[in-house]
């Protein structure tokens, strides 16, 4: 009897999915996608997550968690599961689930929707849940330590190196999105720049004026942010201040690199912590507002279900649906980076093992819902507008007339007047070729929010609100990520030079910080100066690396299941692992060996090298020097893809070896840390 209501939900989700999947030609309402996603997620949680918890992991409600047996009131605290859900969701949800789906919309709304729904249920949420479980049974240790513990020290070190490179790529690609959103936009630039002194004032407030009052200072900060958006318009229009806040992409790139270097060595209370309050609360608030806005507006989708770009050749990113869609949407479907979070603070806070499905599986479903909203956002815009905003300037030019012509020629009719009017509506000089996903989402959010509150006159305000919301937590991530990268690097260099491990001494810290900033700065600069806009090149590399880390985490989970003698359930992790390996290895392979210069770095490098040998300068390069730079960048990206392949394939080797050894063994090999039961009384 208790299954009746679940059956109804399942049927509702299924019929919505059928509507979404079979509509061709006529516009469908966004709510169909929302119902299909939410219904599927609820059923998946009720049946699949609990199945994994009961049968595969055999969660034991009587077994003390680290929060119980190591309770210290600080790091290890038994926490109410709803509170912990919020904590975990805030830690995993960032810019990734907002950007990937927007970029994926170039193939239409259908492929992205299906991949988000299927990917999260079968792969992403399973990964988060499994890693949380594994860490929870081992004192809440980190991913690198877990791999070392279960698969040996070499595998552990390889995983750590992989994680560091991914961190670098993530920081570069996030910073690139900020550059693309703020370049030539004095209003956006002013509001984001204003957050720095604002955060510092908040830091001073929490340090000396009213120490520790986070709620108070966050409200004051929020008022400051709103004022910055409101006055940003006058600043942008002022003949004196406007030009002072107008920067080219290259200038912004250097500003960000300088900012990253300085911000990550400032004391945390001054800038990072207060801005973290603002960005975290704004993020949660904006996501909730977006959900409510979509429900009230119930917008029809303008984007077709499928576009002609599913075979490749799209302007937003290169490559065909398989495998590139599956790496373009990483966060939201399956994100390897979550393995670092699920083995971070969360496992130390779980009060009971039976809370793990809600935290591990549930929070990831929530992130997938955010990704669905981003996809809906991109799909409610006119397709012509979407492609004018997301195509590189090298393809469509920079003025409304050329962009309208080029995009109309792609098969998505739009007038120059519409493009110019949209830019005026959102208070920008131009919205053409604003790649990176964030501006597109901001236009969509402005559309939705102004429908609910304020009307068309408020579009400009809401656009800059959305840009600020995205830029704010990206900058927080850049700052925090640089610090995290610094510690990872110190750990890694420490393997060779032990004195580097000392995290309190100043010199290793500064060297590691500079190396870290230099590394992501290099890729940022490469992306910014890339004639195709950078997102085109960097986002696939980011996607491959992130999915590769997911494959590593799922391989760890597989190895652990074998070592627990639960191998009859190993399909739960083997299936998503196999799919991710197929996608990342194919994508990585194509990025290296494909004959198409738009896809392969090697083919691209060859094309340019051959031309350079003949003394020719190929567009978009304008000089021999630029030719050489393009070739060099190609080789760097090529090497990176090769490194990813080596990392993932060598860990596959270690996983298979571990699993075979576990099958031969008669005893359970999994190294769970048994709590001393008497200490828990």
């Amino acid at each position: 009897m208790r299954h009746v209501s679940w059956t109804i939900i399942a049927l509702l989700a299924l019929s919505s999915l059928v509507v979404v999947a079979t509509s061709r030609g006529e516009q469908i309402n966004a709510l169909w996608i929302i119902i299909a996603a939410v219904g599927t997620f609820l059923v998946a949680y009720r049946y699949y997550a609990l199945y994994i918890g009961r049968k595969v992991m055999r969660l034991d409600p009587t077994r003390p968690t680290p929060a119980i047996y190591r309770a210290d009131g600080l790091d290890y605290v038994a926490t109410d599961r709803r509170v912990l859900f919020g904590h975990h969701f805030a830690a995993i949800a960032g810019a990734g689930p907002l950007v990937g789906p927007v970029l994926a919309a170039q193939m239409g709304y259908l492929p992205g929707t299906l991949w988000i729904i299927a990917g999260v249920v079968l792969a992403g949420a399973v990964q988060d849940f499994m890693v949380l479980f594994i860490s929870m049974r081992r004192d809440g240790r980190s991913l690198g330590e877990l791999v070392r513990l279960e698969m040996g020290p070499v595998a552990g070190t390889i995983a750590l190196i992989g994680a560091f490179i991914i961190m670098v790529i993530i920081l570069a690609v996030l910073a690139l999105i900020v550059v693309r959103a703020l370049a030539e936009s004095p209003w956006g630039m002013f509001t984001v720049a204003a957050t720095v002194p604002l955060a510092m004032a908040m830091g001073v407030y929490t340090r000396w004026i009213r120490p520790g009052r986070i709620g108070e200072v966050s409200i004051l900060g929020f008022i400051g942010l709103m004022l910055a958006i409101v006055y940003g318009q006058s600043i942008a229009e002022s003949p004196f201040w406007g030009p002072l806040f107008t920067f080219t992409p290259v200038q912004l790139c250097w500003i960000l690199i300088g900012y990253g270097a300085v911000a990550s060595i400032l004391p945390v209370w001054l800038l990072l912590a207060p801005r973290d309050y603002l960005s975290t609360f704004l993020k949660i608030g904006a996501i909730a507002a977006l959900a409510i806005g979509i429900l009230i507006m119930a917008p029809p989708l303008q984007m077709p279900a499928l576009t002609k770009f599913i075979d490749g050749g799209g302007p937003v990113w290169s490559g065909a649906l398989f495998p590139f869609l599956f790496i373009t949407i990483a966060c939201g479907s399956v994100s390897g980076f979550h393995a670092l979070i699920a083995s971070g603070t969360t496992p130390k806070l779980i009060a009971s093992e039976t809370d793990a499905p809600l935290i591990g599986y549930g929070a990831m479903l929530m992130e997938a819902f955010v990704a669905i909203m981003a996809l809906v956002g991109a799909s409610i815009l006119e397709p012509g507008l979407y492609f004018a905003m997301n195509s590189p300037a090298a393809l469509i030019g920079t003025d409304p007339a050329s962009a309208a012509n080029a995009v109309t020629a792609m098969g998505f009719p739009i007038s120059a007047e519409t493009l110019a009017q949209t830019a005026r509506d959102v208070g920008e000089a131009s919205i053409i070729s604003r790649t990176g996903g964030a501006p597109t989402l901001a236009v969509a959010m402005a559309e939705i929010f102004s429908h609910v509150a304020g009307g068309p006159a408020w579009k400009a305000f809401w656009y800059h609100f959305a840009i600020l919301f995205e830029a704010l937590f990206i900058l927080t991530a850049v700052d925090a990520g640089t610090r995290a990268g610094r510690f990872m690097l110190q750990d890694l260099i420490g393997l060779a030079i032990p004195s580097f491990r000392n995290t309190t001494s100043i010199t290793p810290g500064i060297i590691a910080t500079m190396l870290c900033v230099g590394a992501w700065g290099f890729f940022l600069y490469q992306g910014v100066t890339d004639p195709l806009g950078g997102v085109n090149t960097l986002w696939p590399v980011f996607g491959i690396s992130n999915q590769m880390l997911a494959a590593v985490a799922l391989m760890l989970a597989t190895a652990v299941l074998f070592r627990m003698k639960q191998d009859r359930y190993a399909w739960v992790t083997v299936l998503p692992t196999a799919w991710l390996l197929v996608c990342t290895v194919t994508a990585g392979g194509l990025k290296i060996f494909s004959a198409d210069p738009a896809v392969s770095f090697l083919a691209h490098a060859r094309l340019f090298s051959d031309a350079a040998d003949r003394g020719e300068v190929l567009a978009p390069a304008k000089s021999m020097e630029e030719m050489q730079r393009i070739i060099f960048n190609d080789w760097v990206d090529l090497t990176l893809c090769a490194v990813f392949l080596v990392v993932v394939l060598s860990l596959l080797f270690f996983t298979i070896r571990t699993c075979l050894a576990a099958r031969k063994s008669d005893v359970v090999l999994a190294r769970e840390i048994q709590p001393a039961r008497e200490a828990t009384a």
Partner: protein
Amino acid sequence: MKALLAKLRETALLMVGQPSYEAYLQHMRKHHPAREPMTRLQFFRDRERARYGSGGGRCC
């Protein structure tokens, strides 16, 4: 209603890395009655350092 607000407050604070001070005090009273617990402010600073001082966890 009051309980709900308290939970929301606790959630918001934990989102930015500040666990419950009351839970900490309770833990100290129960397990280490002889030791002087940190004041609310010391606790705040300690957690601030712990969140950002060692890398911290946050996603893309």
